[in-house]
């Protein structure tokens, strides 16, 4: 039995069991368990300070201070299988005084591959990521988007089985983001497992196979968008703009929402956004607002996107 269990473990690219981490007496992560399957693309989302980056850095060994729980890569302690990981840090990790070509050579050697292999792999990745720049240029001569792409290339020259990307879309325009998503999907098709963090929730939901929401250092949710909607009882977004809205009425609406388990996701001056589970809740809410003699326009009643669901989470 133990043998079978071990064999199963070996097939899992990444598994974490009850990982906990504290820094300066502050608990950053608590009992974070996660399994990443082959060819799976998982996004970890959460508010700033929820522990997303810390979790990825623990997996990649960037944070090497003591943590509780286990992190295994293909069934082995992460220390013994580090070469199967490709960690793309949020900050650019390139040597500004050396050319792109020299950066590729050094990064390749650092990752344990020969200069020749690194150049060959870099050419392949540069073509996939449409980075057709002169390799004799220095990294500082590249644009922000090009730097992000080079940063990714330099981190995966050893053709890792698992790609870990910490906020890879920061500072990228729409076209560059699309390009990067296509690239990650092609990696996934090549049976690579991808785990990333992102704040671009709506865009992320379209591409990943699974979402993991971290809240106060704990896994709040793990699954797809539909499952999340069910969990949060939020199938609709209802947006209203009032002609006039007094502080007194706002308090009344808040009390009503709390009583009926409705969530006010956003409010600004005379605008309110509700997260609703059923159409009936909308009808009841309208009746209540009419009782208060409030005049309003319905801005929208629609399905929520991930950003809006995240507001409720």
């Amino acid at each position, binding site marked *: 039995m133990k043998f079978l269990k071990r064999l199963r473990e070996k097939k899992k690219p990444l598994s974490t069991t009850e990982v906990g981490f504290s820094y300066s007496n502050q608990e950053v992560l608590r009992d974070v368990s996660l399994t990443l399957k082959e060819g799976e693309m998982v996004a970890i989302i959460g508010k700033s300070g929820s522990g997303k980056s810390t979790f990825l850095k623990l997996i990649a*060994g960037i944070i090497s201070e003591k943590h509780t729980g286990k992190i295994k890569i293909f069934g082995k302690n992460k220390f013994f299988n580090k070469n199967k990981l490709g960690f793309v840090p949020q900050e650019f990790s390139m040597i500004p005084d050396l050319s792109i070509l020299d950066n590729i050579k050094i990064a390749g*050697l650092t990752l*344990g*591959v020969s200069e020749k292999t690194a150049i060959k792999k870099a050419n392949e990745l540069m073509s996939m990521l449409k980075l057709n720049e002169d390799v004799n240029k220095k990294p500082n001569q590249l644009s922000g988007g090009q730097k992000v792409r080079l940063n990714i290339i330099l981190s995966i020259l050893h053709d890792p089985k698992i790609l870990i990307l910490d906020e890879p879309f920061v500072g990228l325009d729409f076209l560059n983001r699309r390009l990067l998503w296509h690239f990650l999907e092609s990696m996934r098709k090549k049976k690579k497992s991808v785990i990333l963090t992102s704040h671009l929730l709506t865009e992320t939901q379209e591409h990943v196979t699974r979402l993991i929401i971290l809240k106060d250092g704990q896994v709040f949710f793990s699954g797809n968008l539909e499952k999340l909607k069910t969990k949060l009882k939020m199938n609709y977004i209802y947006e209203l703009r009032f002609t006039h809205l007094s502080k007194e009425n706002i308090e009344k609406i808040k009390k009503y929402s709390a009583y009926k388990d409705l969530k006010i996701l956003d409010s600004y001056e005379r605008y309110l956004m509700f997260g609703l589970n059923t159409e009936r809740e909308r009808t009841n809410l309208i009746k209540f607002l009419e009782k208060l003699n409030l005049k309003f326009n319905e801005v929208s009643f629609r399905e929520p996107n991930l950003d809006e669901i995240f507001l409720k989470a």
Partner: protein
Amino acid sequence: MKTQARRFYGYLKKDTMLLYKRKKYLYLFILLPLIIASLFLFALNSKDYNIDVGICDFDKTDISRGAYSQLNGFNPIILPKDNCIEIVKSEIRLGKLDLGLIIPNGFANNIKNLEQSRMQIYYDNTDIAFSNLISWKVDQAMVPFKRQIINNLNKELSNKVSSVRDGIDVIMEISSISSFANDKIETADSELQKIEEMETEFLVNPIWTDKIPVYEEGLKKDAGIVYVFPILAIFIILMLSSTSIIYDKNTNFLTRVKSSASPISYILAKTIFFTALVLVQFLIMLILFMLNGASYTLPITGLIQLILFVGIIDTLLGFIIGLIANNEGIAILFSLMISFPLMLVSGIFFPTQSLPKIVQWVGEILPLHYQINASKAVLLFGQTISNTWIWFALGLFIIVVWLIRKE
């Protein structure tokens, strides 16, 4: 293994390429040893002292005791007569005594006879700053005693002149020369003769001190590198290695290292790189000193030990600075803060004897002190050095690994 070797080669190659690309560092690396080693060839000066002097008093008279009890700023340590000179030399070589003062038999008698007396001063001619000042300092210390002797002589001369004056007075008063007067005249004549025959040397300098080095005379010229090499190494390597770590932090190269492998091969490769720089610096200085006429015994084992000792310890200290400091400016200030005091207590710019005891003690427990002693042992006396420094290096290495993991 192949993968490890590639990583290792990658780290080495990266720093070599950076040295070439970052021209300021390259210039600094070549120019500093040339400038500082050239500056070193100028003489130095000093102030107050706290000097332990071993005394071999073969005369054992009140006058001989007076010679060493009044020495300004010296701390006399009376040694037994038996085999005294050999003990003095050996204690100086071991660094337990700063000087040896030999007072020969007949020292007091010579002074009484108004003849110049001699003393021998033994000193360490490889202790650069101190030996440069020893003649001046010893003579300075002897001034009170010499003044006392000259005062005594003055009194004696006054007595003798007064005695002659008495004789002449008698002759002047008595018309016929009696036998009494004849005796007086003879005494006066004898005293005058003594004054006439008095040594000019005695009047100029009643006590002559011979300064005798405990090592061959030529060693003093050769000894320069013994100080300059470890000092310059600590000065430059602290700065280069600490800023190199800052650079790797700023460019997130350290993040890449941590995510791809254990930091041990990274630290090892960097340590070897900077130790190689130490070797190059050493060779530059060695050539410069040899062109200036110095000659050295160059034992291969001892030299390798020395270069590794200086290179590894200084590099690891630099890494610690780099890992503690937030940016290059701070790292440089840190390095200066450590290397300058080390230089001051090293005995090259100021004789260590001129420093307060507590500072001397602190200086002795710092690595530069051991590096200078090791350089002296290897370069001047062709010896090998003890490998106990490896434990110190291991301790520093563990601290560096811990700091990188904590980074």
